[in-house]
């Protein structure tokens, strides 16, 4: 059975190879092939899943070693996979949602002449992401880690002819590289500490390592997670990443890749458990990002950017949960999965809206679309309800669990984290309602696009709506399905471990308070955008709004400090290289030439002056000889 694991990755990888090397002759069938390979991967996933369910909870870990990858003395890296419940969850999510989005893209990218390559990239992404979650050691994980980075780079910049897209892609890759630095340093630390970086041995022997070491490793891993999962301070790329085609945003920048950070932390549970300080930092990062994303999400008028802010904030939830330790791991993953459903659904919805509105993204130029695209409206609406945590929908359960866990952390820390999560829930309710109202309610505010075409909103083709419907189902029922009988908990517990913790407040109280903040959030949103008409041009807005529109000045900071600073640095270095380093050498050469020119003058052509030099020379010679004798 375990020999199937490699196939999980091989299928989409093969797909990518075929599609990218296949050339024009595959343009006709490219998208179907791509979808096929994705589906195949999903199929294998399901097969493995059923097999796994068939076995006892403690015997569900499969592992497969392909070959020894880099053997140098103590440094032994294998290409080997490990499939346990955690990986399994991700495999299903990735290949499942992935397949759906492939299908969706068939319709969405219909008119793009480079659609074949698009599917190639998507397959490449799937392969890399699966490698990431299946690797059984950190180095191989690193390969997947950078692989998804590459795929996201290619896909964000898919419309390269737009400079903005190219820039966004570059930015994403660079910011991620900073995170990757963290991961590689973490691996070095692991190697010097344990002499290996394979999950099994490392986790088995964390006990022998000092807490200091573990904290260092954990923090480096966190840095990596921040980069990949767009957590403060490395979040700046996610907003710009929306330059990519919407399916990409849905798959990579909402459902799967951005959640890799969470996977990394949960996977390294053993390490983090040994490093409480690091865990504290994780929770803080999560909390801050949670609010940061939420606030940004409130102010954006670009529907995708608003959703991106929300993604950031939701992942903040997961990271926070993961930071809580055994109390939170399970719920982090659970929220990750449910989020995968509804956020993907929301993005696809947004994509469908743009599809109908000549790729208009400004929500202020939408309005009243519910009549024109009912399916989109319904699916989007369900996703909306799920994310704000409407009772009974999946978001309700997963988020509620995290909030409880936050309180269960105990102590002031618990109170603070709990408060933050609650507040976040409220803001979530606000900005999502805002999106909802701006897009589907109120009166038309449509504007002709640059080419002057009036938009004629229409429902998207089946290939697009069907995935949306399926995802909507997930958004509605997944949470309940997981929660009833604590299925999900029992499923993951063998891998991540679980402890209930002792919450100062009862579950009921938490649920109640979430309901309250939810209502408040929705209410405010309605009062602002539901009651009175919405101006097409955004009002100046409060200071906070303006700050939020500019991502709380985070980009400006980057621009001034890193970009400008860097430019000055390189320019001055170029000067130094030319004038100093090179100048010294050329200077020496020149001085030799000068000396030569001066000595030449002695050769003045007069025989008698030559005689003088001979005479002088003789004198010196004699003097020197005598001197030698004298001393």
């Amino acid at each position: 059975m375990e020999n199937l694991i490699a196939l999980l990755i091989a299928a989409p990888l093969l797909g990518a190879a075929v599609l990218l090397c296949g050339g024009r002759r595959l343009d006709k069938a490219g998208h179907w092939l791509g979808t096929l390979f994705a589906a195949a991967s999903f199929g294998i996933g399901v097969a493995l899943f059923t097999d796994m369910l068939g076995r006892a909870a403690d015997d569900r870990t499969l592992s497969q070693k392909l070959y020894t990858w880099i053997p140098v003395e103590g440094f032994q890296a294998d290409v080997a996979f490990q499939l346990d419940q955690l990986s399994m969850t991700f495999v299903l999510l990735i290949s499942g949602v992935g397949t759906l989005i492939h299908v969706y893209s068939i319709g969405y990218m219909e008119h793009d002449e480079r659609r074949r390559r698009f599917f190639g990239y998507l397959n490449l992404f799937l392969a890399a992401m699966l490698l990431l979650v299946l690797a059984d050691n950190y180095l191989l994980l690193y390969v997947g880690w950078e692989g998804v980075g590459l795929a996201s780079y290619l896909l964000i910049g898919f419309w390269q002819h737009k400079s903005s897209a190219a820039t966004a892609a570059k930015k994403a890759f660079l910011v991620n590289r900073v995170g990757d630095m963290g991961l590689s340093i973490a691996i070095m630390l692991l190697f010097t500490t344990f002499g290996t970086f394979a999950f099994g041995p490392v986790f088995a022997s964390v006990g022998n390592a000092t807490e200091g070491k573990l904290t260092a490793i954990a923090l480096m891993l966190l840095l990596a997670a921040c980069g990949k999962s767009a957590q403060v301070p490395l979040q700046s790329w996610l907003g710009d990443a929306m330059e990519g085609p919407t399916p990409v945003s849905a798959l990579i920048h909402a459902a799967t890749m951005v959640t890799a950070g969470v996977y990394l932390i949960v996977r390294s549970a053993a390490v983090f458990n040994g490093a409480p300080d690091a865990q504290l930092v994780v929770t803080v990062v999560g909390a801050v990002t949670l609010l940061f994303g939420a606030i940004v999400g409130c102010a954006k008028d670009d529907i995708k950017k608003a959703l991106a802010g929300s993604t950031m904030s939701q992942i903040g939830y997961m990271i926070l949960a993961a930071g809580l330790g055994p109390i939170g791991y399970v719920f982090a993953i659970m929220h990750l999965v449910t989020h995968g459903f509804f956020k993907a659904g929301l993005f696809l919805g947004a994509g469908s809206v743009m599809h109908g509105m000549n790729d208009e993204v400004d929500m202020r130029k939408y309005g009243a679309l519910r009549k024109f695209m009912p399916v989109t409206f319904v699916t989007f609406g369900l996703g909306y309800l799920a994310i704000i945590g409407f009772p009974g929908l999946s978001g309700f359960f997963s988020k509620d669990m995290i909030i409880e866990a936050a309180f269960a952390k105990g102590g002031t820390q618990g109170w603070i984290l709990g408060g933050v999560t609650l507040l976040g829930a409220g803001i979530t309710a606000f900005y999502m309602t805002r999106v909802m109202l701006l897009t589907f309610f109120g009166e038309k505010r449509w504007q002709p696009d640059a080419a002057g075409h009036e938009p004629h909103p229409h429902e998207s083709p089946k290939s697009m709506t069907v995935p949306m419907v399926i995802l909507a189902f997930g958004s509605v029922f997944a949470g309940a399905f997981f929660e009833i009988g604590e299925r999900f908990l029992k499923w993951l517990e063998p891998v991540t471990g679980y402890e209930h913790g002792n919450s100062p407040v009862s579950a009921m109280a938490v649920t109640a308070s979430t309901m309250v903040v939810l209502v408040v959030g929705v209410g405010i949103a309605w009062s602002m955008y539901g009651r009175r008409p919405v101006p097409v041009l955004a009002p100046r807005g409060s200071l906070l709004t303006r700050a939020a529109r500019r991502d709380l000045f985070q980009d400006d900071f980057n621009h001034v400090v890193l970009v400008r600073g860097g430019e000055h640095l390189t320019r001055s270095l170029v000067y130094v290289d030319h004038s100093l380093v090179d100048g010294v050498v050329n200077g020496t050469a020149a001085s030799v030439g000068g000396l030569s020119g001066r000595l030449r003058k002695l050769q003045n052509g007069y025989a008698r002056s030559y005689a003088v030099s001979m005479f002088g020379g003789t004198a010196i010679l004699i003097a020197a000889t005598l001197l030698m004798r004298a001393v």
Partner: protein
Amino acid sequence: MNPVNYLYLAALLFTIGASGVLIRKNAIVLFMCVELMLNACNLAFVAFSRMHGNLDGQIIAFFTMVVAAAEVVVGLAIIVSLFRTRHSASVDDASLMKL
């Protein structure tokens, strides 16, 4: 008289010849100065020969004269041809090649 004095004289003559070479312009004079130096050497040879009581020095002196004569032959040939070309025997005029 102490033979050493002859050596002093030889040294003096040699120096005079040498400085003559350095300060005189006319090739012929210059050349005469060289001859003077050679003669200074001869004097030294003879003096030393006397001091050591063997005849080698004196014989060498004869050789020197022969050689000097040969030098004159060659030297004058060159200087005269130069003079005929340039109508001047000044060595300083012959400075086409420099630097």
